[in-house]
């Protein structure tokens, strides 16, 4: 197999208050793969994501992105390679206009002028939000803000796109638009979600995380069909949803 896009090995982390949030996380995501990361509230998913680009530093273990170790020297390059989309788009969009916000990342990595503008336009185009380039983020709908948030990291041309609960707070139509956008992106994706039909539709493979470690990983259909596993980790499918049925893929 080729070198994984993302490789996490034996990751341990405790918050300053002593709470141990990660207890030995191992996972890998291959180039071009879309992988869902499932798990109950408090499992440590968000904490794990914050390690992927070095915002949090592990107490032990390693994170490698396309062969590059997440460490102090490589911090900037790793941040460019990992496109982290936060749970709340209002945390991610902090510039006065959409265009400026999307430009923020690539400009930090030294892009200027026409090249920068082209990058911004391409990223907004990829999420169908080019028309909003001069608008203020707080004037957009929640679903539109979510898509702009994705554009802000696409503009950095990352190796892997990492999304934290991208469908939370979306109405069904916005959720559908988001699925279409993500499916069309030719990029490696790791997606944290509680929306199991969404995981099934988007990601061929799923990992289950609980109490700070990865407890299962398999084809998404098989994971969602394993009732014992699902119950043990507080995962619940929508009423009458059959992962093996005609729904999803």
């Amino acid at each position, binding site marked *: 197999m080729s070198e994984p896009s993302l490789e996490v090995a034996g990751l341990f982390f405790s918050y300053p208050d002593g709470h141990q949030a990660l207890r030995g996380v191992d996972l890998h995501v291959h180039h071009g793969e879309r992988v869902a990361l499932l798990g109950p509230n408090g499992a440590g998913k968000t904490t794990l994501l914050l390690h992927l680009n070095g915002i949090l530093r592990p107490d032990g273990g390693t994170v490698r992105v396309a062969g590059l170790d997440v460490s102090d020297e490589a911090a900037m390059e790793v941040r*460019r390679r*990992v496109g*982290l989309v936060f749970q709340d788009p209002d945390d991610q969009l902090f510039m006065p*206009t959409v265009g400026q916000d999307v430009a923020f990342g690539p400009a*930090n990595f030294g892009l200027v002028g026409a090249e920068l503008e082209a990058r911004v336009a391409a990223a907004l185009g990829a999420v169908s939000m080019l028309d909003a380039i001069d608008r*203020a983020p*707080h004037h957009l709908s929640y679903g539109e803000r979510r898509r702009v948030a994705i554009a802000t990291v696409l503009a950095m041309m990352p190796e892997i796109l990492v999304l934290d609960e991208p469908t939370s707070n979306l109405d069904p139509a916005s959720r559908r638009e988001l699925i279409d956008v993500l499916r069309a992106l030719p990029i490696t994706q790791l997606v944290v979600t509680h929306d199991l039909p969404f995981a099934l539709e988007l990601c061929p493979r799923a990992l289950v995380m609980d109490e700070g470690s990865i407890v299962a990983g398999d084809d998404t259909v098989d994971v969602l069909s394993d009732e014992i596993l699902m119950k043990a980790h507080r995962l619940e499918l929508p009423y009458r949803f059959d992962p093996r049925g005609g729904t999803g893929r």
Partner: protein
Amino acid sequence: MHRLPPQVKVVALLVFVIAVVLMPREAFWAHALAGCLIAGVMILAELPAGFVARRMLVEVPILIFALLLPFFGQGPTTRVLGLTLSVEGLWGAWTIIAKATLGVGASVVVSATTTIPDIIRGLDRIRVPRVITAIAGFMVRYLDIVAGEFARRRVAMASRGYEPRWLWQGGPLAQSAGSLFIRSYERGERVHQAMVARGFTGRMPTYGDRPASLRQWVLGLSVSAVAVVLAVLSVTVIR
């Protein structure tokens, strides 16, 4: 007018206001022509009259203050319509009303044709320190979110029967402001994480502000230039 780069409009406004301030008070004609100029620009920019009138309301306190001056001014007096008025006071009132109206009028034109983010960008272009414009930008971006959170909090409290009427009943609201502050602080932390994740190292990058062309500068400053000519003429011709 709407399409001029913000830095051009900000500088033009500044020059116009300085020119108006420099006009001697005896030069009624210069003030009148400057007024026509602003009115002309408003018509060109197609600003609705009602909109302009509402924006001009910020001037009301200044007008009231100015109208009181003739009654309380010192020195020689004159009689107008049976009222004894101070000559200096009348001049003072005229100066304030004329200059305030022109200044506010010009500001209305700029603010009506420029969004706040653009004004901030304009300030950025003319080398107002980056820290100040960045803070102003964050305020514009998050004011709305914090205000929204506060409004939701009040609704949540009201729907559980809390309806403060008197100051001493304000305790819960004040406490809620406290937790709002913590929430804002935590948001600040998350926003900072999001910035670091996109390569932020403490310096705000610039983007999207193409430098203004010479033509745009000439166009934008032409109005101010006329005002400057008026000021210069009024100083040299009258004195």
